């Protein structure tokens, strides 16, 4: 390890300025807290993301409780939540606060920060063959902005008027007028502050990921030899860099509307609570929706692409077969990245959007099905007739493919503007995006954690617990979200606490109770995963070989416990692509092995 370090100091000219301060005996603080080592930063993102996931998941359990049992009171809720559940019932205001925070936390802090932050940091330098990121300093700042944003967001849960409660998309006027609801007051200011810090963190991280992939690849690592994980993380970063700034500009205009009295989004408003007509004129709430969804749609792919990349890699490794259609996989990632910027208005079909424009967006939206289908086809062909090793990582990768197919199909329903008139803002949308984005990205993340845990901590996670975790989560996820399609088709709107006044939805009473029960079970199984994770860090079975899964990629050529700098001695040189499995009678050929004279072409 000290060897690797001397390397960093003396030979890695690019990092010279940042690393000048490093010495062999680092203090605890500089090694684990303000670390500039991409592997430590990855773990910081992962563990922060896990804490957020538990909090965000718990919120959904709480509001599911009330949705499943709308007429009951739970006195113990008041004991633990105090004002949030006065008289043992979650009030409508608090229900809105809970769903808003649930969405914000899961979308941004878990599946964006937690997912990209973890795996882009961990895998990019290790798989492209670099000692660290292009700028380890910026990388460290990226985590600390994320941390700061997390603290601010968290603090909004504890203020008197409560956190923001106008939905994760923060549409004005609810988000623009403090008088509109309790959560629109200080809670919203904290929400914007936290999100702004989050955007800065994403940008700092994304800039680094892109420039590392493009500039710091080891000798021989041409772009077409990159593992698909890296391609996916690269496009994810590009999406973020180009779309988050637009969200930021939307937020800046929102801040002016909130605090300077401008009318970017506001017009002709009368507030009943204060008996007051506002002077704002000429603004348009639709403008905010455009700015929001211009990020919002790319954002869903920011969440999904890393999962796609990791699933591709893990499926290939555990099928002991090359990924089918490597270039088609890269091409479809590229197509998705481009199209992701051209479909945002499909979230706005019912806002009075010009129907002609709407039909253009229908076309572009349905076009996304093409690259998505290519990817699915290639995953299925990769596992076709393969000698599959059902490791926990592999199971989750397979689960990912299943969920992506199910959720992608319902996207095609929603992408038709005429059908969407009926389906918009119903439980059908909830079912769609939870399956295709929420759960499937979680599956990609679990797959990645189980697969790369040995590289992260030098130990294995417990497989028995992992199998229980997998089956309960997969079956549970379908049981929770599949029935929601029927509720949505029947017209049941989202974002209501109590449906008992709607005779037509009474038929769903039992179903709602069932969904809530399964949600609680699935949530508790996630705690089993958390236990497995932390237990295995300290007590898991030790990794004894450098390359436990028999992978071709570079990270498995590094020592079992890589130091800062990743490789002792020189960085290995790359001679081939990342998918030489079951070739010429050999189980696998590492990327570092030169092409032999009589080798067959892939």
């Amino acid at each position, binding site marked *: 390890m000290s060897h690797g370090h001397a390397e960093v100091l003396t030979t890695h000219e690019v990092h010279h300025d940042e690393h000048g301060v490093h010495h062999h005996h680092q203090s605890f603080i500089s090694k684990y807290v303000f670390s500039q080592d991409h592997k430590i930063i990855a773990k910081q993102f992962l563990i922060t993301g896990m804490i957020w996931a538990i909090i965000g998941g718990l919120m959904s359990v709480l509001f599911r409780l009330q949705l499943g049992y709308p007429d009951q009171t739970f006195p113990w809720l008041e004991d633990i939540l105090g004002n949030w559940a006065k008289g043992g019932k979650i009030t409508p205001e608090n229900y809105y606060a809970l769903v808003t925070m649930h969405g914000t936390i899961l979308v941004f802090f878990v599946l964006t920060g937690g997912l990209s932050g973890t795996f882009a940091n961990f895998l990019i330098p290790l798989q492209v063959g670099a000692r660290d990121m292009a700028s380890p300093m910026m990388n460290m700042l990226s985590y600390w902005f994320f941390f700061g944003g997390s603290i601010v967001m968290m603090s909004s849960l504890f203020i008197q008027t409560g956190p923001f409660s106008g939905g994760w998309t923060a549409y004005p006027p609810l988000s623009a007028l403090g008088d509109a609801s309790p959560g629109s007051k200080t809670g919203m200011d904290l929400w914007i502050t936290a999100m702004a810090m989050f955007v800065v963190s994403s940008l700092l991280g*994304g800039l680094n990921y892109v*420039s590392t992939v493009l500039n710091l690849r080891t000798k021989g690592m041409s772009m077409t030899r990159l593992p698909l994980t890296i391609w996916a993380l690269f496009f994810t970063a590009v999406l973020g860099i180009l779309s988050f700034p637009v969200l930021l500009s939307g937020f800046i205009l929102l801040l002016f509307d909130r605090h300077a009295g401008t009318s970017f989004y506001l017009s002709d408003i009368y507030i009943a609570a204060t008996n007051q007509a506002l002077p704002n004129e000429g603004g348009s709430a639709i403008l905010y929706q455009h700015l929001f969804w211009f990020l919002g749609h790319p954002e869903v792919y920011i969440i999904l692409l890393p999962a796609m990349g990791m699933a591709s890699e893990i499926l290939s490794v555990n099928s002991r077969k090359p990924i089918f259609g490597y270039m088609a996989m890269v091409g479809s990632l590229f197509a998705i990245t481009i199209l992701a910027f051209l479909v945002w208005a499909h979230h706005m079909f019912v806002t009075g959007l010009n129907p002609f424009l709407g039909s253009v967006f229908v076309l572009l939206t349905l076009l996304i099905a093409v690259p998505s289908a290519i990817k699915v086809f290639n995953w299925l062909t990769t596992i076709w007739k393969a000698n599959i090793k059902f490791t926990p990582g592999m199971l989750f990768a397979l689960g990912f493919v299943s969920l992506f197919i199910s959720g992608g199909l319902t996207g095609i329903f929603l992408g038709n503007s005429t059908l969407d008139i009926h389906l918009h803002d119903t439980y059908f949308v909830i079912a769609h995006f939870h399956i295709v984005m929420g759960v499937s990205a979680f599956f990609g993340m679990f797959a990645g954690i189980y697969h790369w845990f040995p590289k992260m901590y030098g130990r294995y996670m417990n497989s028995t617990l992992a199998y229980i975790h997998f089956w309960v989560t997969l079956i549970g996820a379908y049981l929770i979200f599949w029935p929601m399609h029927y509720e949505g088709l029947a017209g049941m709107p989202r974002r209501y606490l109590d449906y008992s006044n709607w005779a037509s939805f009474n038929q769903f009473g039992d179903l709602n109770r069932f969904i809530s029960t399964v949600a609680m079970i699935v949530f508790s199984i996630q705690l089993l995963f958390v236990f497995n994770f932390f237990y295995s860090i300290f007590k898991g079975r030790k990794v004894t070989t450098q390359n436990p899964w028999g992978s071709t990629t570079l990270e498995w050529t590094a020592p079992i416990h890589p130091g800062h700098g990743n490789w002792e001695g020189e960085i290995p040189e790359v001679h081939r692509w990342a998918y030489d499995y079951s070739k010429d009678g050999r189980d696998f050929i590492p990327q570092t092995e030169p092409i032999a004279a009589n080798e067959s072409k892939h």
Partner: protein
Amino acid sequence: MTEAVSTQRKKIHPHKFTLWVGIGSIIMMFAGLTSAYIVKGSMGNFPTIKMPQLFYYSTAVILISSFTMQWSLKAFKERGMQQYRRLLTVTMILGVGFIAMQLIAFSQLWESGTKLKGATGSGQFLYVIFGLHAVHVLGGVIALIIMFIKAFSARIRNYNPVPVEVMSTYWHFVDLLWVYLFVFFLFKS
């Protein structure tokens, strides 16, 4: 030992590259804002304003500062440290001057009745967009001040041109960005 360095492919210095990607992201931010303007402006009932004359002068100032920046980079590369410091100082002063002129122009506009409060209009966009641009110039000025201190500190002897190149690229960028925004508003309001 030095071989490990040659294994790293460095066609373009990563810091420079990072700057270019960062510039792409700043462009997206202003593209978002100006397209918001276009969307809003096309909805009708959108009062426009008369641009203060001062913006023409501030345009001249920032354009000149781009020249002095480029010049100082040239001086640095030729190891003309004296000249480099002088030109860096001039650039910095011009940058501060630009921001000051923007602020004065804002207050003129304000005096003439364009306020933030109330009905929408191109004035509100102008304050936000030009203000945000000024913040980016301010960031550049702060970076210049840091370079300035480094250039005058006797202890640091550094002939690495990369930071100066990064600085000058950024400076030209905020200059061009200003020209774009200014022309945009000239046509739109």
